[in-house]
């Protein structure tokens, strides 16, 4: 049996030290804050990040450098026969594209880059699924194929507390930009595979939470074929405000009896575009082997 390594990045919400316990390797996402480079989960905590964001610091993200990625692969392949790399959704970053290109050159049959359009809690779930498949003895190629087979079967809704960061940043579609109106609104965005896009608007947080819960129910019922908790992972995410998140978790679990919602802080790469105080709900199809 070949020895398979699993690599992901911190956009999955899995920090390097947690990754070690899962038997995977996690690449920290680099951030440039006021000209200084930080690595998520290494020398940049959630706390520091939001503090700097609130101070109006100039925050930008970048993908791990190709050099460091290759170096990592080489090092890992000394110990393993093949590796599965699960980067951030190709719709939100070019890491996936770069990695696919790098893998095609010299790593054919050894490095399998998964392009399954995930981010944050849904990406985390993919990583966990990959670990399970590895433990069951699947090859890297099989793991990639399984993950990509369900690539469109995930859905995320995010309610923003403010439009400020969305307007400030650049990574929004015109539809989302059009949400800026005279009224103070709490936009609800969606990530269906590729992009962060506008979904709906609400005037109050309660309205927004209801919109997300209803949209998720609709997705699970109509896109994922029913409410059986054995078929669907339900998870939640938040930026910075844990109390609000725990209250939301309770509300979601009431609306979805039988589900246990995993809650993670939203990856910083998303947070830097939407700011603090956001809440998200996500689901993805469970992989049955």
């Amino acid at each position, binding site marked *: 049996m070949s020895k398979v390594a699993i690599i992901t990045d911190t956009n999955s919400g899995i920090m390097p030290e947690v990754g070690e316990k899962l038997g995977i390797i996690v690449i920290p996402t680099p951030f440039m804050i006021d000209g200084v480079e930080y690595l998520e989960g290494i020398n940049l905590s959630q706390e520091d990040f939001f503090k700097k964001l609130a101070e109006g610091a100039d925050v930008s993200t970048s993908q791990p450098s190709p050099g460091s990625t290759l170096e990592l692969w080489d090092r890992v392949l000394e110990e393993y026969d093949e590796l599965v790399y699960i980067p951030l959704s190709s719709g939100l970053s070019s890491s996936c594209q770069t990695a696919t290109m790098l893998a095609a050159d010299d790593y054919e049959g050894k490095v399998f880059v998964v392009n399954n359009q995930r981010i944050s809690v849904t990406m985390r779930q993919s990583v966990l699924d990959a670990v399970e498949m590895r433990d069951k003895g699947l090859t890297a190629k099989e793991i990639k194929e399984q993950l990509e087979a369900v690539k469109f079967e995930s859905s995320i809704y995010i309610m923003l507390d403010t439009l400020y960061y969305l307007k400030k940043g650049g990574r929004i579609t015109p539809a989302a930009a*059009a949400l800026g*109106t*005279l*009224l103070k609104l709490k936009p609800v965005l969606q990530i269906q595979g590729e992009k962060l896009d*506008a*979904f709906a608007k*609400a*005037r*109050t947080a309660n*309205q927004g939470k209801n919109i997300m819960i209803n949209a998720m129910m609709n997705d699970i019922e109509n896109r994922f074929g029913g409410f059986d908790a054995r078929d669907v992972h339900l998870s939640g995410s938040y930026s910075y405000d844990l109390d609000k998140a725990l209250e939301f978790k309770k509300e979601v679990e009431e609306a979805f009896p039988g589900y246990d919602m995993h809650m993670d802080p939203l990856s910083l790469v998303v947070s830097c575009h939407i700011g603090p105080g956001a809440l998200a709900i996500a689901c993805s199809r469970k992989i049955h082997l």
Partner: protein
Amino acid sequence: MSNTINAAMVRKMFLAGASNLNAKKEWINELNVFPVPDGDTGTNMTMTIMSAAKDVQALSEDVDMATLSKNIYSGAMRGARGNSGVILSQLLRGFTKGIRDYEELDAAIIADAFEKAVETAYKAVMKPKEGTILTVAKGASERATELSKEGADDLGVFFEEVVKYADEVLAKTPDMLPVLKQAGVVDSGGQGLVQVLKGALDIYQGKEIDYTVDAAAATPVAKKSVELSEEDIKFGYCTEFIVLLTKPLNVKQEMDFKAFLESIGDSIVMVADDEICKVHVHSNDPGLAIQRALMYGQLSNMKIDNMRMEHREKLFHELESGSYAEIDTEINGAAESTPTYNPGDDIPLKAGATAKAANEPEVPVEHKDMGFVAVCAGSGLADIFRGLGVDYVIEGGQTMNPSTEDILDAVAKVNADTVFVLPNNKNIILAANQAQIMLEDNNDPKKIVVIPTKTIPQGITAAINFIPDMSASDNEETMKEAIGTVKTGEVTYAVRDTMIDDVTIKQGDYMGIGDSGILGVGNDIDDVAVMMFDKIADSSTELISLYYGSDIKEEEAAALGKRIEEKFPKCDVEVQYGGQPIYYYIVSAE
């Protein structure tokens, strides 16, 4: 004594009824239960019936019953505005259904037409309420049937008895609706109907009354009947002709043709039956009207007068003492200040290509699945609705209810398969529903969905809850559900002394009116606003919005916002400029 009436008499009686209603409209306006400054039942009913009367007036006296019937009901349906206006248009629709197949009407036919009228009108109202225009109509109908069964053949007696009984029922409306009793008024819509019937009766009895209708009453801006001066002549050629239709115009063609005429002039009268279409328009380029009309058939009875020249001649006659120079200065001065339209520039053969372009989208907008039309008064509110993605805003809402035709026109300007209409006023919902039905009856591929928003905040909530990714029917459901979550209040002033919900109100008092009654009365605007919040906000309220009207200064609104914030520290308070007339504040809690 006679026992039948013909179309010529029905025409005369209808016009006399319309004319009598017009004469009494101010008085009827004052009968509104809520002593609000925009009580307008009389105006709404008058504008509805005048829209039909204008068409009917243009018909010749020897018109047949079918053509007369069609013009009465189609004019009323298009012009319908306000709830009583819509009900009146439905009464006329039902009534004309009952008479259109006969050239001579006797008591039995008329009684049957009354029954059809009542039946049609009751169907148009979702929850018919007694003590209203419906009850008065029903009373008249019941009496007519009774008399007809008794073998009434003298129509003079028959009409008199019916009108007398309608009046009696009207007098009883306060006993049926407690709000009327407390306010000490009879139902205003019912009174309007009685006035129509009385006008018709008078002319039948041979009373000397002027039943020519004032066309201006049918147009939203009541024109003052001042002496025409040349400056007022914006469009110089009075143009009239008849189109001998190659085939009957459908509703869309009719509306397009009318819109075209509106784009090249004013004072438009256009009446069509299946064979002919009579056109009257004042325009600076009559050729355009003629050219366009040729698309529909041959023309006859053409007549074009230069009104500026006529006016000049009239001045010569009238001002015999004045010098020619004076008169010429007057004319030339006026002529210079009148922007003349040069027909050579470009010939718009499509409706809306000229004059009114300012209010219309400049570029043809992309076709969408779903679009929005919202009704509101006030530039701030209009901006808010546009900002929320509403495609077309009908400005008018509170003080001037748009007609069914206004709504159809607005919907026609939205390039979408489904157009959601937000009436934002409980008195506009019926007219919007009627627009929806008219489009449906016409097999128009476009669909109107009325979201029954009764207030501006409900409309805003509906627009916010729209989700472009969802189907039209899911959106309809979501929006209808969402509008129930917002509570509204409005602050205005009382125009007379009255009593509502056991609250005594004095003329000039400020009143806070909520979704289901009076929330506060006082002599300080801010105090009344705060009283309203005490009733509409509770521990679950997250957001309070204040939309301030055109009579409120920004600082005043900000100060009130601050006061509310202190009172409800857990809520977000948002103050926005609404710019609406009459209502100092429109507020909401959600």
